[in-house]
């Protein structure tokens, strides 16, 4: 195949008015074909929603368009002025060693194509200001020789860079956090800083990997308004990868939808997709759970301290059994401040109390930073509790080690980093003592977990949490965020199957589970 690297005007000519275009992309991993001749074209100012089933290749396509992954075959054109160019694959040997023909993330960034990550990936040891300032290109101060020989020039430029970074952070409402360490800010603040960092590389095209994941209702609205504002003021072209329940929110913003199916991209109108999504998603997780399964139509809801709520569902015709998990006055605090629980009007710290019965699914929804993960981690024994009692099957487990709680039938699915990448799927199930492998996962059993897609990994992790021998209570932290519709149906069916002897507690961000409620006392 002919291989070229054209630069500047040559690239403009071939890209035909598009800012980024890819043609005939093929990509396979270990014999599994992910992309088979995919072509996409992006016009300036477009906001594209990229969606697709789990394993359809969304992340693969995003990685290819940003230079993190090379396609096996295909062409990519970037219209990025002198830094733009076209890349033809497979690469000739001299192109792989020539510094001018490299297809790398850095090269794509210099051509104006930048990205954000699902897990945000700010530099944790640095302040938000430094996180953004480091992204500014062509800094004299990054060359030690310049620093030592022309310190004043470098200092003046650094002052300008810090000004730019500070005002960029202020524009997204982070003016009070410029000197906050990146590992100490909230999820929403970190996401906003990550957008700013990507934009300050000089990006004209920004690809966002699940920017709404893990956010509550207010957080989603904030992020969408920030994105819409950035797109307008900076003239950005956006490609947003999102999953099932967040897609309707992105559709409010999107001008086009790319749907990946069978290795190809179909371009659709947002309006048509929205109509279909109404049928698929309805009004949030609770309604979806109810409709897609035999769960009772109305949930009982218990208000929790600090603004959280637990909705209890049970299967129609199946009365909940005995109490399997009792949480009584549970409080987790650090240095006298409640990080789960709340402070009463008298200044006293007050803990959480609720009961979970066999055969119930409890959906815990609360705002970000309420302490959902803290609650689940303290129940499973990873975090020490300050006060209160956790009773599992009549046994007080408050002071037991995590492994001892697990042996009594308590399991947990963490919201991220919940699989062992280096194991095969079969080995993962063996480690988790899963006796029966759920339908649809046998096909993966000999594959390494690191080679699975995000959704497939999540299915394996869920199966490990729910498939434990003598399961009594499964705690699931945002289990559905990476799922498509088919995976959701499979996951809910799997959750229901485990209800015979056990109960399930699912934590989701607030705004995911609006439903009809009656109060449980």
């Amino acid at each position, binding site marked *: 195949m002919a291989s070229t690297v054209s630069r500047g005007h040559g690239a403009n000519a071939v890209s035909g008015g598009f800012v980024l275009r890819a043609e005939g992309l093929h990509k396979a991993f270990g014999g599994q074909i992910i992309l088979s001749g995919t072509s996409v074209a992006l016009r300036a100012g477009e906001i594209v929603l990229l969606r697709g089933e789990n394993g359809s290749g969304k992340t693969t396509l995003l990685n290819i368009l940003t230079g993190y992954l090379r396609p096996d075959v295909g062409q990519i054109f970037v219209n990025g002025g002198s830094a733009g160019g076209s890349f033809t694959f497979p690469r000739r040997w001299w192109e792989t060693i020539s510094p001018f023909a490299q297809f790398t993330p*850095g090269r794509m960034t*210099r051509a104006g194509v*930048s990205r954000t990550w699902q897990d945000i*990936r700010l*530099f944790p040891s640095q302040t938000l200001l430094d996180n953004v300032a480091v992204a500014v290109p062509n800094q004299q101060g*990054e060359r030690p020789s310049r620093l030592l020989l022309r310190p004043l020039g470098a200092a003046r430029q650094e002052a300008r*860079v810090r000004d730019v970074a500070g005002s960029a952070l202020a524009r997204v409402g982070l003016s009070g956090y410029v000197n906050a360490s990146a590992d100490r800010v909230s999820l929403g603040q970190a996401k906003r800083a990550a957008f700013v960092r990507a934009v300050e590389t000089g990006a004209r095209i920004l690809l966002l990997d699940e920017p709404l994941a893990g956010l509550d209702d207010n957080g989603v609205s904030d992020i969408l308004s920030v994105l819409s504002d950035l797109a307008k003021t900076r003239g950005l072209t956006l490609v947003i990868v999102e999953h099932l329940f967040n897609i309707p929110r992105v559709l409010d913003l999107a001008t086009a939808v790319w749907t990946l199916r069978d290795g190809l991209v179909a371009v659709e109108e947002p309006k048509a997709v929205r109509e279909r999504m109404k049928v698929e998603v309805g009004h949030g997780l609770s309604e979806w759970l109810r409709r897609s399964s035999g769960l009772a139509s109305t949930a009982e809801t218990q208000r929790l301290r600090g603004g959280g709520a637990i909705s209890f569902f049970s299967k129609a015709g199946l009365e909940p059994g005995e109490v399997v998990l009792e949480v009584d006055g549970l409080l987790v605090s650090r240095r006298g401040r409640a990080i789960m629980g709340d402070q009463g009007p008298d200044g006293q710290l007050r803990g959480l109390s609720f009961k979970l019965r066999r055969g119930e699914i409890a959906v815990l929804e609360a705002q970000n930073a309420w302490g959902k993960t803290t609650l689940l981690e303290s129940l499973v024994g990873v975090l020490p509790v300050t006060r209160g009692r956790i009773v599992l099957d009549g046994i007080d487990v408050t002071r037991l080690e995590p492994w001892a709680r697990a042996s009594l039938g308590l399991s947990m699915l963490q919201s991220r980093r919940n699989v062992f990448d280096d194991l095969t799927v079969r080995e993962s199930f063996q480690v988790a003592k899963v006796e029966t492998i759920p339908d649809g996962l046998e096909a993966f059993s000999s594959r390494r977990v690191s080679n699975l897609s995000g959704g497939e990994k999540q299915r394996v992790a869920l199966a490990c949490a729910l498939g434990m021998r003598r399961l009594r209570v499964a705690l699931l932290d945002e289990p559905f965020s990476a799922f498509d519709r088919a995976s959701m149906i499979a996951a809910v069916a799997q959750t229901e199957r485990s209800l015979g002897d056990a109960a399930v507690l699912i934590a989701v961000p607030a705004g995911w589970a609006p439903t009809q409620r009656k109060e449980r006392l």
Partner: protein
Amino acid sequence: MNYVLHLSIYLGIYCIAALSLNIIVGYCGLLTMAHAAYFAIGSYVYAITTTRFLWTPLQAASMAVGASVVLSVVVSLAPRRFKRDSFVLISLAVQVIVFSVIANWFEPMTPPGTLRNLTNGPFGISGVLRPSIFGISLEPLARFAALAVGAALVFAVVLHFLLNSPWGRLLKASRDDELVARGLGKNVDLARIQAFAFACGSVAFAGALYASYVGYIDPSTASLDHSILMLSLVIVGGTGNIRGPLAGAAVLLLLPEALRTARIDDAVAASVRLLIFGVLLVVMMHLRPQGLLGEYRVR
């Protein structure tokens, strides 16, 4: 008084060594076992060029720094492909190779500093004189102490300036998440090569100071134990800032001296010192894994 001056000279030399190692460990996030090798290259190049070729101290020190920088650039191309554990092994290989070359480039009855007997092997090179700079002899201990402590102070100030600049920020970003830093369009490899060159050149200068102070060097300057001592200074003191390595050098160099006053029987004193040193390291790892004053925890 001479004892205090002697300690100040050692402290000055090892502060430069610890601060330079901190660039690699604390700012690049890479654990190296080869720092003593670069220290020894500095010592040997300085010793050979001054004793055999009668170069001036400035010429000899520049050559010592240059030789170390060149080797570091060649070796630091490795981190591009080798990460974490495998980088430690690469640095260990460099350490072993340099030590072997120094210990074995030797032929009896041939003057040291020649091609047949470059390093004089296990017998080392003696007769390295204390330098005169701009006509001022550094033979008196107080003047040499002023040079060593002054050099360490100047080095700390320059390093503080460099590491608090955009270059330091870039190194820290690359250490925290290399892939993201590359994705921001940054030349991570170049920044690391610069950091390695600067660190290895600086420790070679410390080596040259050491050779000219002691007057005699042998292969033990390039030993693995010496590298581990330097690494201990940084890990005990803490990495990721300037204060940590300085604190580490002060504690670990002055602790054995403080123990001298404890009137321990000479026969067991060395063992007791090692025991205390070992216990201190274990306690530190449990209670303060980031070191006394460190910001970054080496993984």
